[in-house]
C-alpha cells in the first residue's frame, strides 16, 4: 500500500531531493527494528496523506504548505565550535558551565560540556542515536507509546520519516537532577531540512530542569526547514520543567511539536520564548491522563518584519483532579502576524478539573495582526474552566502616565512591552536566559 502511494506521488510530479531519499530509505542493521518500523510507517503515512486543509480545525489559521518538503534536501552540516555560536550559547547557559550541554545540527550531535554531578546522580544525557544503540529497549516503550500521533498528520509523519538523531534525557526514579541540562538545536544550511527528536523521561518522583535552545543559521540563501519534536514522559510524582528559547534565523521555517504525558500527581512546566524564524508553528499538547496531574504552559513571542507565527495548544483533561494553566503572550510589530488557537478538552468523568487558558496580544504597528481562538469542549460538570483572550495596543493612559514622569515615548513603550511580557519572562528559571530574552524584546521596540 505504501509503495503504491509512493509511486503515485512520483508519477504525479517531482519529488524533492529529501523526498527521494525518503522513498529509497530502508532499515539498517545498527538501528533497532522497532525504530525502523516507526520510520517506515511514517514514511508510508507521509506519502498517502494529504496536507491538512482548513477543514482541519487545528489548521484554521496556519499555512501547512510552509512546512512542506518541497525543494529541500537533508543537511550535511556539522555542529562546531564557531566562535560566535559559542559565545551565544554561553550567553544563554551562563558561565561557568558545569552543566551538561549537547548541540545538534543536521543529524550530528556534539557534546559541548558535561556535568559530573549529573553523571554521578545517574542522569543520562546523550544523543538519540547513541541511546538507540545502547538503550534501545528502554526507549522502545516511550517511542511506541503514541504520544505524538504521526499516522494521521502528514507534517508529523515527515518528521518521523526523517528522524535520525536527537537527544535522550533520562532521570532515574527518585533522583533530582543536581544541574540543569542544556540542549541546543541548530537549523541547517540553506535548502535543507533537519528533524531533531528529543525524548525526555522523568521516572517516578524524579525532578529535572531542561533547557532547549533553537539557534539560527545564516541570514542569506534559500529557506531551510526545521521539524522538531519534543516529547516528555513525566511519571507519577515527577516534576519536569522545560524552558525553550527559539531564536532561529530569518531564513528558517520551523514546526515544533511539544507533547507531554503527565502521570499521577506529576507536574510539567513549559516556559518558552519565540523570536526567530520566518514561518513558525508551535504545537503543544498536554495529556493529563492520570489524576492529580498538573500542566503549566507559558509562552511569549515577538514577531516583526513579515514573520508569521501560528500556535496550536491542547490541554487534554482525561482524568479527574488535574490542573492546567496556559498563558501565551505576544507582541506584533511591522507586518508581523501571529495566530493562537487553543483547546481545553474535559472528558466525561474528569471531575474537579481546574483549567485556565489566556492569550494576550499587543499590536504595536498599523500592519500588525493577531488572531485568537481559545476553545473549550467540556463534558464534565464539576469543573472550573475559564479562558480569555485580549488584543490591544499599549494602553494610552499608561503611556501618558509614564511620559508625564519625563520618560520619552520610545522608552515608555519599551517599558510597557517588557512589563507586558514579564509574567511569562520572569518564569524562565535561569538569569542569563532571562536577560537574553528581555534584551531582545527591548531592542525590538523603537
Amino acid at each position, binding site marked *: 500500500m505504501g509503495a503504491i502511494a509512493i509511486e503515485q506521488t512520483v508519477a504525479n510530479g517531482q519529488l524533492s531531493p529529501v523526498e527521494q531519499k525518503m522513498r529509497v530509505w530502508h532499515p539498517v542493521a545498527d538501528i533497532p527494528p522497532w525504530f525502523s518500523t516507526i520510520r517506515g510507517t511514517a514514511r508510508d503515512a507521509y506519502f498517502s496523506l494529504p496536507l491538512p486543509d482548513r*477543514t482541519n*480545525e487545528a489548521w*484554521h489559521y496556519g499555512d501547512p504548505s510552509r512546512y512542506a518538503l518541497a525543494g529541500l534536501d537533508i543537511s550535511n552540516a556539522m555542529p562546531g565550535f564557531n566562535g560566535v555560536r559559542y559565545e551565544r550559547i554561553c550567553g544563554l547557559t551562563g558561565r561557568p558551565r558545569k552543566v551538561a550541554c549537547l548541540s545538534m545540527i543536521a543529524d550530528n550531535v556534539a557534546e559541548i560540556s558535561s556535568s559530573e554531578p549529573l553523571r554521578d546522580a545517574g542522569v543520562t544525557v546523550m544523543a538519540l542515536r547513541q541511546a538507540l544503540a545502547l538503550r534501545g529497549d528502554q526507549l522502545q516503550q516511550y517511542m511506541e507509546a503514541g504520544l505524538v500521533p504521526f499516522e494521521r498528520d502528514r507534517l508529523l509523519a515527515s518528521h518521523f520519516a526523517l528522524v535520525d538523531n536527537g537527544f535522550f534525557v533520562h532521570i532515574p526514579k527518585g533522583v533530582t537532577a543536581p544541574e540543569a541540562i542544556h540542549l541546543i538545536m541548530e537549523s541547517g544550511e540553506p535548502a535543507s531540512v533537519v528533524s531533531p527528536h528529543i525524548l525526555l523521561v522523568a521516572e517516578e518522583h524524579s525532578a529535572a530542569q531542561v533547557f532547549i535552545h533553537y539557534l539560527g543559521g545564516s541570514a542569506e540563501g534559500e529557506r531551510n526547514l526545521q521539524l522538531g519534536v519534543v516529547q516528555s514522559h513525566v511519571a507519577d510524582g515527577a516534576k519536569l520543567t522545560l524552558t525553550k528559547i527559539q531564536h532561529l534565523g530569518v531564513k528558517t521555517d520551523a514546526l515544533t511539536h511539544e507533547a507531554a504525558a503527565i502521570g499521577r500527581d506529576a507536574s510539567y512546566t513549559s516556559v518558552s520564548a519565540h523570536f526567530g524564524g520566518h514561518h513558525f508553528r508551535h504545537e503543544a499538547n498536554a495529556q493529563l491522563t492520570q489524576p492529580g496531574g498538573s500542566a503549566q504552559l507559558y509562552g511569549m513571542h515577538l514577531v516583526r518584519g513579515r514573520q508569521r507565527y501560528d500556535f496550536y495548544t491542547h490541554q487534554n483533561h482525561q482524568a479527574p483532579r488535574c490542573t492546567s494553566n496556559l498563558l501565551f503572550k505576544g507582541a506584533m510589530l511591522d507586518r508581523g502576524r501571529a495566530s493562537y488557537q487553543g483547546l481545553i478538552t474535559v472528558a*466525561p*468523568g474528569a*471531575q474537579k478539573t481546574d483549567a485556565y487558558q489566556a492569550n494576550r*496580544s499587543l*499590536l*504595536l*504597528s*498599523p*500592519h*500588525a*495582526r*493577531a*488572531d*485568537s*481562538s*481559545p*476553545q*473549550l*469542549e*467540556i*463534558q*464534565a*460538570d*464539576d*469543573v*472550573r*474552566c*475559564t*479562558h*480569555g*483572550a*485580549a*488584543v*490591544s*495596543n499599549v494602553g494610552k493612559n499608561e503611556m501618558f502616565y509614564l511620559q508625564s514622569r519625563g520618560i520619552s515615548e520610545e522608552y515608555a513603550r519599551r517599558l510597557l512591552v517588557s512589563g507586558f511580557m514579564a509574567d511569562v519572562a520572569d518564569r524562565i528559571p535561569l538569569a542569563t536566559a532571562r536577560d537574553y530574552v528581555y534584551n531582545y524584546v527591548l531592542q525590538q521596540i523603537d
Partner: protein
Amino acid sequence: MGDDAAVELAGYTAGWHDAGAKYKFKAEPGLSERLVRQMSEMKNEPQWMLDFRLRSFAHFQQRAMPHWGGNIALDFDSIYYYLKPDAGNSRAWEDVPTDIKNTFDRLGIPEAERTVLAGVGAQYDSESVYHNLQKAWVDKGVIFLDMDSGLREHEDIVRAHFGKVIPPEDNKFAALNSAVWSGGSFVYVPKGVQLDIPLQAYFRINADRAGQFERTLIIVEDGAFVHYIEGCTAPTYSSEALHSAVVEIIIKPGARVRYSTVQNWSANVYNLVTKRSVVMAGAKMEWLDGNIGSKLTMKYPGCVLTGEGAHGEVLSVAYAQTGQHQDTGSKMIHVAPGTTSRIISKSISKGEGRASYRGLVRVHSGARGARSNVECDALLLSETSRTDTYPYIEVDEDSAMVSHEARVSRVSEQQIFYLQQRGIPEDQAMALIVSGFIEPITKELPLEYAVELNRLIQMEMEGSVG
C-alpha cells in the same frame, strides 16, 4: 376559556395540530428547478426574483455542507418545500378561515390583544394568511407586510435591498432559503419614526416534513426605531422538520433596531438560520436571542458595522437538554472607526444536552478605535451535559481593543441547600438559580417573553436534579 387552559403551562408540550388542514396545492417532496419555477409563477413574481431563485438553487446544489457545527442528518429529498394553505391573504380578522382562526386561538392570541399590537403576521405553512396593520402606523408611512406582499407592492424598495446583506452564496442554507423562500416579514420604517409598540410575528409548522423558509427584510431609515419580535412554537412530530430562515436588516445612520426571538421548536426540528444586519454611522443593532427548542439550532446573528460609531449587540440564551444541540453565537465585523460590539452568551446544558458558542469578532484595518467585548457563561446541570466554546478573534487594527472571556460552572450543592433551607424545594431552587443565571438577558426582553422563558425553565427543571 377552556382553550386557554390547554395553552397554559401544562399544555406547553404543544402536541397538537389541525388534523384536517386543507391545502390548495400540495407540492411533492424534494427540491427541483421545476418546483422553484412553479412556486415563483404561482406567486406571480417578477422575472428578477425568479432569476434570483434559480441562481440560488444552482448554488445550493453545488455548495458543500458546513464542515463544522452540528450534525445535520436530513434527507433533503423528502422535505416539502412549498405548501399553499386554503386562505387568501386578508386584512380583516373576519375574513380569516375558521381552522386558521382556531390555530391562532390555540396559540393564545385573544382578540383583545390585537388592538395593542401594531400588526400581527402569522405564517401558516409557508404562506402568510393574515396581516393587519393599525391605521396609525400606515399613516406614518410604516410598512409591515408579509414578504410576498412586500415584493408585490413595494418592488423597488425590495429589489434594492433583497439579498444584499446575505447573498445566496453566503452559505448553503442561505442559498436554499433564497431559492424557496416563502413568507416572512417585510418591514420599512421611514426617517425619524419611533415605533414604541413592538411588531410581532408568529410562525408555525403544521404538516409532516414541512419546511419553513421565511425571508424577512427590515429597512429602517435615519433616526428611526423599531422592535421586532419573532416567537414560534411547533408541534411535536416523529419525522424531521427543517427551518431555514434568512433575516436581513439595514439600519441607516442614527437608527436603532431591536430584534427579539424566543425559539421553541419541537425536538425534531433543524433550525438553521442566517441573520445579519448592516449598521451604518451612529446606528445600533440589538439581537436578543432565546433558543430553547429544536433538535439542532445553528444561528449566529451578526452585524456588519460599516458606519462610524456603529454599535452591535447580541444577548443570547441557549438551553439544551438531552437530544438537543444548540450551536449559537454571533458575528461582529468592524469595518469603520469608532465601532463597538458586545456579546453576552449564556448557555445551560441539562441531561445530555450540548450547548456550543461559536462566534467571530473581526476588526478590519482602518476600524480605528474599535472596541469589542465578549462574555460567554456556560452552566452545566448534570454530569453528562456538554458545553463548547469556539470563538474566533481576528484583529488587523492596532488601535482596537478586543477581549473575550468564557466561564464554565455548575449549580453547586451548597447553593441548592441554601435555597432549600429557606423552604424552597429542590427543583424550584434549581429553576430560581437558572433564572438568575440568565437574568442579564431576560431583563431586556419584553415582559411577557421573560415570563414565558422563566416558566419554560421552571418546567424544564422539574425532575432535573439527581
